[in-house]
């Protein structure tokens, strides 16, 4: 009896033992197989699983003003991404003494909901979003849903502390910020979602501003840390280069204020101004009255008015015609003319802007009084081809060297297409269209003793006065400047800059408005200050100004010029002018 149970027990034990031995042998066999035969591929698969390429994002370069103040820069931001599937499985851990380090609570209170609702409740305060809306976003099928974009690192860090790893992740992105966005929105332009410049200087300087992303390939541990000695490839990111403009933010701001004041004072549609340093041909300010914010869609759609708006320069064009006549030795500034207030040439009647008895004016006097009749008389022997050539040489109708997006080169047709009237109207700035940039450089050519240089808006050390072209002789430029100074003296009451001599020319032209009729008015003023030692050329243009004293450029654009000129002289501490002693007579 006592031994009868032992046999089956032993047999069973033996069977169980055998099964265990077989299992152990199978495991051992598998282990041996893996170690001896399959080891390499297994190890490779494991290391491949751990090896992850990590992109190292390059920062887009900044745009700075001439003094190094930031106009555009990129900041690191995050895109918060949710995993709806993981969110659905979320069960909050109540905070107790034991779970203190890894629990969920909202301001010390329990979350009170599972799944997506719980995640949304936890996340909503940090993202400053509605918990219901967030819950809705997380309650969709799939494993990837973007919850918020352009989240600051500070917010991202507080999200990291919520204990939602695996449900909520943050992807690094960047945001382009413009500290003074409205200062010159269209000029700066903007970037698209991929970070590529699509408008303004962001577009033209995109190549310079764009960096090159780098990467690192290494094996990472569970917490994402690099396992030492496992980095197989790496390439450091190269940040985009900064672009420094020649624009001075202070001047830009002040010019914009002056333009806005002028626009409001004269009820103009818009106003624009260009300030150019005559010694370096750098653009110091390129302002208008538009309020488009840099980076906005408006700034991307609308180009800067200073380069995009074209208009007939009006009487400012007389300076170019007179320069050509003097250069061709057809006249001198002191040549005497008897000028009525209207004249008929080739059955075409030309009138001055105001009625006056017949005057004894010199060519300087014709310029000072802006006489269209006088210009037609003086241009009697001035060939059409020369009229065209000098306009071209001064840069009218030619693309500027700035290469800004949306820049219009204006409209200057060849002399063969000119009719009997146009061939004479071009003498006083009508019959062709230009923009403020071209006009500024044309007058800067006279200020620079007859040499025209490429303008620049990007500060490029060591490269100044590129592409210099002599347009007229130094003497000719000086004579025209002398005449322009007499013009400025004529308008002392509206556009005087105390202590400084100014050489300027004013213009008023009828332009086509939306309807196509010549109902629009462009009033403009170009001035060189100081006239005896030119530092700056300032062009001011107003569209459709109205004033009880008239709409002439001298009355509307002139005061705005004077305000800007005074600021420039104060800011850059330009020495005061010496008294004028060499004025060419304007009457005889």
């Amino acid at each position: 009896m006592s031994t009868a149970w032992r046999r089956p027990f032993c047999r069973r034990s033996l069977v169980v033992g055998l099964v265990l031995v077989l299992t152990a042998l199978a495991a051992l066999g598998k282990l041996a197989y893996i170690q001896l035969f399959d080891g390499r591929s297994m190890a490779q698969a494991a290391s491949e699983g751990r090896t992850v390429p990590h992109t190292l994002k390059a920062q887009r370069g900044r745009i700075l003003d001439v003094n190094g103040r930031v106009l555009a820069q990129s900041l690191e931001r995050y895109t918060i991404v949710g995993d709806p599937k993981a969110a659905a499985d979320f069960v909050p851990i109540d905070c107790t003494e034991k779970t203190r380090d890894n629990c969920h609570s909202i301001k010390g209170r329990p979350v009170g909901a599972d799944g997506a609702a719980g995640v949304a409740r936890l996340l909503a305060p940090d993202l400053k979003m509605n918990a219901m809306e967030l819950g809705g976003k997380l309650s969709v099928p799939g494993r990837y849903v973007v919850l918020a974009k352009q989240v600051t690192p500070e917010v991202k860090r507080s999200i990291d502390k919520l204990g939602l790893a695996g449900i909520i992740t943050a992807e690094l992105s960047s945001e382009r910020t413009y500290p003074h966005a409205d200062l010159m929105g269209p000029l700066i332009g903007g970037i698209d979602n991929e970070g590529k410049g699509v408008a303004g200087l962001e577009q033209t300087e995109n190549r310079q501003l764009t960096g090159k992303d780098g990467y690192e390939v290494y094996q990472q541990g569970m917490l994402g840390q690099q396992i030492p000695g496992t980095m197989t490839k790496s390439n450091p990111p190269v940040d985009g280069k900064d672009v420094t403009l020649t624009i001075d933010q202070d001047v830009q701001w002040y010019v914009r204020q002056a333009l806005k004041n002028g626009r409001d004072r004269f009820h103009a549609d818009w106003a624009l101004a260009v300030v150019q340093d005559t010694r370096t041909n750098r653009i110091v300010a390129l302002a208008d009255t538009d309020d488009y914010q840099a980076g906005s869609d408006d700034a991307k759609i609308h180009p800067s008015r200073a380069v995009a708006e074209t208009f007939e320069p009006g009487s400012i064009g007389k300076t170019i015609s007179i320069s050509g006549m003097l250069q061709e030795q057809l006249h001198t500034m002191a040549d005497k003319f008897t000028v009525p207030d209207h004249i008929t040439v080739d059955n075409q009647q030309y009138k001055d802007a105001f009625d006056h008895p017949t005057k004894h004016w010199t060519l300087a006097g014709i310029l000072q009084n802006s006489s269209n009749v006088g210009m037609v008389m003086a241009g009697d022997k001035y060939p059409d081809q020369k009229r065209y050539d000098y306009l071209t040489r001064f840069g009218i109708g030619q693309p500027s060297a700035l290469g800004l997006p949306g820049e219009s080169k204006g409209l200057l047709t060849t002399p063969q297409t000119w009719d009997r009237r146009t061939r004479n109207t071009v003498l006083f700035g009508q019959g062709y269209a230009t923009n403020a940039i071209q006009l500024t450089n044309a007058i800067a050519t006279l200020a620079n003793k007859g040499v025209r240089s490429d303008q620049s808006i990007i500060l490029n050390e060591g490269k100044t006065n590129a592409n210099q072209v002599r347009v007229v002789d130094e003497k000719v430029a000086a004579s025209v400047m002398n005449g322009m100074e007499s013009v400025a003296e004529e308008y002392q009451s509206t556009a005087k800059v105390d202590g400084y001599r100014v050489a300027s020319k004013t213009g008023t032209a009828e332009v086509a408005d939306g309807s196509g009729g010549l109902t629009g008015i462009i009033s403009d003023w170009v001035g060189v200050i100081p006239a005896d030692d030119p530092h700056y050329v300032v062009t001011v243009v107003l569209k459709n100004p109205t004033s009880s004293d008239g709409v002439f450029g001298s009355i509307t654009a002139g005061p705005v010029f004077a305000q800007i000129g005074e600021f420039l002289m104060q800011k850059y501490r330009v020495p005061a002018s010496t008294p004028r002693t060499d004025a060419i007579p304007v009457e005889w």
Partner: protein
Amino acid sequence: MASAARTVRSRATPGKGHPQSQPISTRPELNLVKGTQTGGRAMVEGARRVISWTHTRGTPMMHILVAVIFLATSMFGSLMLRTQMVQNSFEATRVQNSISNLTQDVQDDQNKLDQLQASLPDKAQELGMQPQQGLNSIDLQGYQAPSSDKTGGQH
């Protein structure tokens, strides 16, 4: 069949295919000695044999000892270094994160500063401040600088 063939060959070359038929060799040879001792005594015996073996070689015992210690130290050192590297890796990741956090903070603060700077002119205008206007200048034409010997005596 096979055994018959072997038999034939063995006869052709007697003494090669059948070692058992050879007379017992008188040469000294290694024989398996069955151990009569167990446990610690066997180990002691083994160590003693290793030591005695080393004495039969040209290398003194000290050299072997140094080599073994060196090997062990190297392995241990390598292990320690590897452990340290892993620790440092965690530390490096932490510091790296900290640096990138600080860089982000600096960027954000710089941006705030830039924005404040950019708003200064507008704020100044709101406060009613005006840019300097008018011109005050001193005309130095005709002014003669005092000669050096005179300036020396002026106090």
